[in-house]
């Protein structure tokens, strides 16, 4: 399945947002997620099914002004 992760087109076998995070090495990382522009709380990632062309954002804490 082709999806867009952080603005880059990606092929994935992941069926849910939780599986995608794990596949990308973020299983235990401190990250937050959004799907197609909407926030997805961490506990809900396992219930969120991915679909072709979905746009996923995965972010982490960073320096800011």
């Amino acid at each position: 399945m082709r999806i867009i992760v952080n603005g880059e087109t990606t092929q994935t076998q992941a069926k849910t947002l939780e599986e995608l995070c794990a596949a990308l090495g973020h299983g235990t990382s401190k990250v937050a997620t959004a799907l197609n522009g909407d926030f997805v709380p961490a506990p809900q990632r396992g219930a969120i099914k991915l679909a072709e062309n979905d746009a996923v954002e995965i972010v982490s804490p960073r320096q800011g002004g």
Partner: protein
Amino acid sequence: MLEFYGTEIGSRLLIGTALYPSPQILADAVKASGSRLVTVSVRREAARARSGQGFWELIKQLDVYVLPNTAGCNTVKEAVTTAQMARELFETDWIKLEVIANNDTLQPEVFGLVEAARILNEDGFKVFPYMTEDLVVAEKLVAAGCEVLMPWGAPIGSGQGLANPLALRTMRSYFPDIPLVIDAGIGAPSHAARAMEMGYDAILLNTAIAKAGDPVKMGRAFSQAIEAGRLAYESGLMEPRDMASPSTPVAGTPFFNIDGAS
């Protein structure tokens, strides 16, 4: 004592965490400045990277209040979603709300700002809006639930100081009971002192400390300037006048000749 949304903050200097030469210098500068609140952000995490983890550990060690921002957001939707991600990541409902109009001025897009503030306040956030000094926008932000206002001094990163002191003075008078923070544009401790002398409650800055030749020493400089400015405001500044007025008593001046006096 300075309070934001009922929380007492021990310092009137709020500082950003970006642009420092190293994480250690950031930590040292925060400690030297005495700041009790730092701003942070969220950014995309690359696959198999753990860039955010180290920064998060550093921030926790600083033991300060954390104010996440929505820097870089151009729409209400982006800002709201970014705020929600930041709330989960940083475990706080405080958000420095930025909705940016264009990349040259980084001017707040005030219509989107008001709308995003309303949505976030209804969602339980405590919103710190980065705004222009416009009084009508300020009123609408207060009506939307904001209990803190953060007008810009000058464009972000410009170091120009207070570009519109008349409007900022008016804003202070117009909102005597709302915590007002000058956010952005401060380049020198004297700029910060001036804002504090005008009665502003706190200063939020980043570049002026982070990009100083010695950020740790500059952190102390800002701390002292802000304390001095606050003390001056509380003390009551003298009114300026156009003509000279002798401070040394005139009576008893040696060689004073009443006939020659004019």
